[in-house]
């Protein structure tokens, strides 16, 4: 035994012989793949959308309040930091929405072949970009 990592790999096989077994790969040395990347991105966007509900609730509460209160909330959303947050919120919502449908398909037992998982993952990434940009183009035209 040379060091801690090799100590952690020590085990006995069924004959009782000491063997050095590979350790389950740690995140730091695990090659990033579309499957794992999209999975953690689903969590990140979900948590981000949770933070985004602060903006939603502020907007609703302001709409229920006075004109001045609504003007302050609407003014923040239309300001540069507000617009950046709104853009991130749109992208996160579109991604979490599309990847969520991907998860529901898996729950129904569909699309589990690795080729299908990769294809649906790429489709989600492409559609996220397309739909986010499309929503903003429509929004900026209406605005």
């Amino acid at each position, binding site marked *: 035994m040379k060091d801690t990592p090799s100590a952690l790999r020590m085990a006995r096989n069924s004959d009782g012989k000491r063997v050095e077994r590979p350790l389950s790969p740690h995140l730091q040395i695990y090659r990033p793949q579309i499957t794992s990347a999209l999975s953690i991105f689903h*969590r990140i966007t*979900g*948590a981000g*959308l*949770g933070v985004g*509900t*602060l903006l*939603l*609730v502020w907007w*609703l*509460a302001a*709409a*229920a309040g006075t*004109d001045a209160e*609504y*003007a302050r909330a*609407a003014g923040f959303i239309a300001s540069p930091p507000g617009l950046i947050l709104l853009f991130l919120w749109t992208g996160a*919502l579109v991604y979490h*929405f599309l990847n*969520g*449908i991907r*998860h*529901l398909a898996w*729950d129904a037992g569909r699309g589990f072949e690795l080729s299908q998982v990769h294809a649906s993952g790429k489709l989600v990434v492409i559609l996220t970009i397309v739909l986010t940009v499309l*929503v903003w183009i*429509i*929004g900026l035209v*209406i*605005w």
Partner: protein
Amino acid sequence: MSASKMEITPMRSTLGRVRGLGSAKSGTGHWWGQRLTAIALVPLAIWFVLTLLAHLGAPHEAVAHWIGRPVNAVLLLALIVALFHHLHLGLQVVIEDYIHGEGARLAVLLLMRAAVALLFLTAFVAILRMAL
């Protein structure tokens, strides 16, 4: 092997199967809740984004009037019920995965529940105020 020959021999006791609650004693409630709200949020999110787009830059009075109309208020209430339930279920799993200390995990879970509940109630009261 034909499908008719495939038999599953459960390793759980009959009583355990009837109760269906498993080792965590909470059963599949969390899993179903997450999926049910996810399915509900599919049409509600599409409706919400489209109506937001349609009301961009609208004056306060028009926005409050639109939210206050019965169908819109009901759909918005349905949206926030599903949304905040989905949010608390999702955040619960994230917290349970990443916070390992028993006390810290419980504290953060309770704080998260409180924050989500207060946000939900604020949105709820705001919508009702415009609808009633």
